[in-house]
């Protein structure tokens, strides 16, 4: 994944800073609460939501089970429609292919449609190293790029910024990237959107090469689908001469009809709209309409590792709607950057450690970045049981015996032993109760708990002693 996230601290440490940043907390709270209620309303409009959810989940599971067949079929369909298919086992290979394709056109500029896959592989950095400028054209991506920032949300990468901050970034940075921000730019969202329109228009009109991802690829027809709102996607997909799409292999669906499920569930889950403003569907190249050359780069980059895990593979159903982020109480407080990945939030906590492995400090901490409250599973339009996968990945991390986990394992074993010997457990409880007057409310070494919470006062006697003493309350005592 992207080099910008290398060496990220573990989640708890990164989250600690975010929790204390009151502006960030306010921005995230405002944005996530706004979209939460809207999503609930948009979903409630469809009486068959649970059936659509189940169908979406099964379509994805069926695809994943036979992904080899569908990828081969997809390759044939795209090729027959005039496209060229490339395969990339990892980020480096994908970057090499794309860089080579851009260089072959002789261009030194590309326009980009928002794409998680190209962020994941750090494509912009790879292009820059070869002297190619990549311009992000999605409004939020533009804010992140101009602000020399990192994305913190799947759908709205600049969700951590409020309107005032966005205005300041535009005023300060637009000029060095092209057309400056209009004089006296306000922080009214419509004015900010207008400034982006003016700034990017010249880039769209002269672009010869565009790079995109895709939300879906239809094996049966070779059709690629991009959902968007602003029209920057359409600009990139139709005006340039060459289009390069980098897409994760799990974005495949078997049939054209399968799209009817996701066309209903994705917009409502994502932007809480009945339908997003623009959806583009293209199959190879079309005579005289849109790019003359179309390249599809199929990306693995750890996906087959996730696919090999019988519990973890459900994460590959993800359609990147970000409903799980918007509803997550941990994401709301920790912010997206703490997840150390282009995939933040609950889905990121199960996707990143599977794509990258659990050896780094951040990846080993992500499965624990959840209270397992289950709100993410409830809203997921493809029914990914995120808490189940989190616990499964915790088992993997605990099994590695990394920092802290050896001691933890010993403690868990001891606890299990005590709990499998009720007499020992009762003795421990009794001792704790009898010495309760000696227990401080904030014992040293327990700061993780007592930083903001007191410990409860222990009772005079544990329940089991009361039961024995009173015969379950029946004896008069």
């Amino acid at each position, binding site marked *: 994944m992207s080099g910008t996230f290398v060496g990220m601290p573990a989640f708890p440490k990164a989250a600690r800073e975010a929790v204390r940043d009151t502006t960030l907390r306010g921005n995230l709270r405002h944005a996530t609460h706004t979209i939460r209620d809207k999503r609930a309303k948009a979903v409630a409009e469809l009486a068959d939501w649970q059936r659509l959810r189940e169908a979406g989940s099964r379509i994805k599971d069926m695809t994943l089970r036979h992904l080899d067949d569908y990828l081969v079929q997809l390759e044939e369909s795209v090729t027959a429609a005039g496209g060229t298919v490339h395969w990339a086992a990892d980020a480096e290979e994908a970057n090499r292919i794309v860089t080579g394709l851009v260089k072959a056109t002789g261009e030194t500029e590309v326009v980009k449609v928002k794409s998680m896959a190209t962020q994941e592989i750090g494509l912009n950095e790879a292009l820059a190293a070869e002297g190619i400028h990549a311009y992000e054209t999605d409004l939020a991506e533009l804010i992140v790029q101009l602000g020399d920032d990192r994305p913190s949300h799947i759908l709205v990468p600049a969700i951590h910024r409020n309107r005032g901050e966005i205005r300041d970034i535009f005023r300060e940075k637009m000029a060095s990237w092209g057309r400056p921000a209009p004089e006296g730019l306000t922080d009214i969202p419509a004015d900010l959107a207008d400034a982006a329109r003016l700034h990017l228009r010249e880039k769209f009109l002269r672009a010869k090469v565009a790079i995109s991802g895709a939300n879906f690829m239809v094996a049966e027809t070779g059709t690629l689908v991009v959902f968007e709102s602003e029209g920057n996607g359409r600009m990139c997909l139709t005006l340039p001469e060459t289009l390069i799409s980098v897409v994760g292999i799990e974005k495949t669906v078997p049939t054209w009809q399968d799209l009817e499920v996701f066309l209903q569930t994705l917009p409502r889950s994502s932007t809480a709209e009945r339908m997003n403003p623009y959806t583009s569907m293209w199959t190879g190249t079309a005579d005289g309409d849109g790019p003359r050359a179309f390249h599809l780069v199929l990306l693995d980059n750890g996906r087959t590792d996730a696919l090999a895990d019988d519990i973890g593979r459900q994460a590959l159903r993800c359609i990147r709607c970000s409903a799980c982020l918007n509803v997550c*109480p941990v994401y709301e407080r920790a912010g997206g950057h703490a997840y150390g990945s282009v995939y933040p939030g609950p889905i990121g906590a199960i996707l990143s450690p599977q794509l990258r492995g659990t050896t780094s400090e951040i990846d080993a901490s992500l499965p624990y970045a959840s209270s397992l*409250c289950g709100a993410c599973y409830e809203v997921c339009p493809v029914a990914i049981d995120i808490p*189940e996968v989190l616990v499964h990945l*915790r088992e993997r991390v605990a099994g590695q015996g990394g920092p802290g986990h050896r001691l933890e394992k010993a403690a868990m074993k001891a606890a299990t032993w005590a709990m499998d010997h009720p007499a020992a457990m009762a003795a421990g*409880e009794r001792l704790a109760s009898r010495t309760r007057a000696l227990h401080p409310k904030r014992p040293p070494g327990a700061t993780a708990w007592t930083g903001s919470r007191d410990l*409860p006062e222990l009772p005079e006697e544990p329940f089991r002693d*009361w039961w024995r003493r009173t015969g379950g309350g029946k004896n008069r005592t």
Partner: protein
Amino acid sequence: MRVALFVTCVNDAVYPATGIATVKLLERLGVDVDFPAGQTCCGQPQFNTGYRHETEPLVRRMGRVFADYDHVVTPSGSCVAMIRDNYPRIGHRAAAEGRGDELGRVAQSLVPRVYELTEFLVDVLGVTDVGAYFPHTVTYHPSCHGLRLLGLGDRPRRLLEAVKGLELRELPGAEECCGFGGTFAVKNPDVSAAMGIDKVRNAAATGAEVLCGADNSCLLHIGGILHRQDAPLRALHIAEILLSTEAEPQL
């Protein structure tokens, strides 16, 4: 009908009053409750922290201890969720690892017999008015496991609404997690506390005297924050409210 109380490890050691209230409440409703002394813990802390194998002896113990009862009642939603959702998984994984179907059979036997207290009252005993009297303002925190995994729905609310003298106040953001999450509370203390502080703020905004829950692990966390803040609000398990009568008030 042989009914066993699974008091849970947290209630046994820290909140015996909840266990006692559960016993007395059920007795008042004519249910003879037994407390098999071999019980300890359902294994949720181990399992949710990633120690599935360490959980297995406790699954077997739960199966043995409660083998002879028609119903197992527990005043803890998260422990019921552990049994219902995760025991079958543990059994399935053990079988997949070539270790036979013993754990799977424990799950199969136990799952249909285990009830969270409010489920037992409403679904098995068919009561919502338990004859309680509690002249206080109360706001109810539904707890994630009860709300989303068990689907307790409006059962706790119906029970509380039938309590004489009790005024129920709507908790803003009721469905949001309080931030406890077992070992989450110590592995991610800052986020956990931030969530808890927001929960307490919402509860305090209702002006209620009591924050009621059906799961003492959440109340351990919320109560710890209330105590630290010296808040006038008091956390109380629903069993203790339902036990309360004019003759024997619980607050």
